[in-house]
């Protein structure tokens, strides 16, 4: 299987290979993160907490997926992502950098998102959205982390055709 990740800093090819990824997408170079329907042409991830804005943005053809920043899960939004066959990216940077106490709550939040996506047929994908080399993890670590949320490796960021 070929895995990918999305990060916010420039990763060299040697590190990408050592970590076991097929491709590490860099925000600002390979794709953009936008907060609505605005933005430059090209592949985009829409990020925000307003389900209405996110749902509208998902209809854009160049939006490859979304990152939901809100605390409460929105079932309709996940159903919309499933219907449009768009990715639901679940950033794990906070999960990795939080202290043990806060990590428990973040783990539950990520687990809830993954479980809801699994149930509703949406494509959840764990990404690091790392801001520096300390935040990124190897594929082996990502696999173990995804097993915490879904034993079948459902949330692993695997290429399934197209850009992502």
């Amino acid at each position, binding site marked *: 299987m070929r895995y990918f990740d999305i990060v916010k800093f420039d990763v060299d090819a040697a590190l990408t290979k050592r970590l076991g990824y097929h491709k590490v997408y860099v925000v600002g170079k390979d794709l953009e993160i936008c907060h609505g329907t605005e933005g430059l042409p090209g592949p985009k991830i829409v990020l925000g907490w307003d389900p209405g804005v996110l749902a509208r943005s998902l209809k854009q053809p160049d939006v490859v997926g979304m990152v939901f920043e809100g605390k409460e899960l929105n079932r309709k939004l996940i159903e919309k992502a499933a219907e449009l066959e768009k990715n639901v990216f679940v950033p794990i940077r906070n999960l990795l950098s939080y202290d043990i106490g806060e990590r428990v709550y973040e783990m539950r939040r990520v687990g809830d998102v993954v479980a809801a996506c699994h149930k509703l047929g949406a494509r959840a994908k764990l990404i690091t959205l790392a801001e520096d*080399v*300390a935040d990124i993890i190897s594929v*082996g*670590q990502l696999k*173990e*982390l995804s097993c915490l949320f879904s034993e079948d490796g459902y949330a692993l960021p695997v290429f399934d055709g197209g850009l992502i």
Partner: protein
Amino acid sequence: MILRRKSRYVLVEVSCKADLNSSEIKKDVMLSLTKELGGLGRLRAGPKIVWCDSDSRFIVRVNRGYEKAVVLAFAFIKKLGSVRAGFYTLGVSGSIRSLIESCRVV
């Protein structure tokens, strides 16, 4: 009869350069690992640094069955001494030789 305990070897790379042969750094890595695994988890896993290169890679020996926990624990460690650092596990194997061959170390 005491049976020999089987081990697994985990190759780890640190994102920053550090003197991994120094006992203080090794102690710091083990303390961070204990924090993530818990005292009991560390006793069961029995991690031990068995090989270090000069700057950024080392091999940890763990008891078989606990290698997945150790791999995950390294993902949560974000500090080496006072420096922010990431720990990437590059491979897991049953012997140091096969680990070195599969990951092309040295």
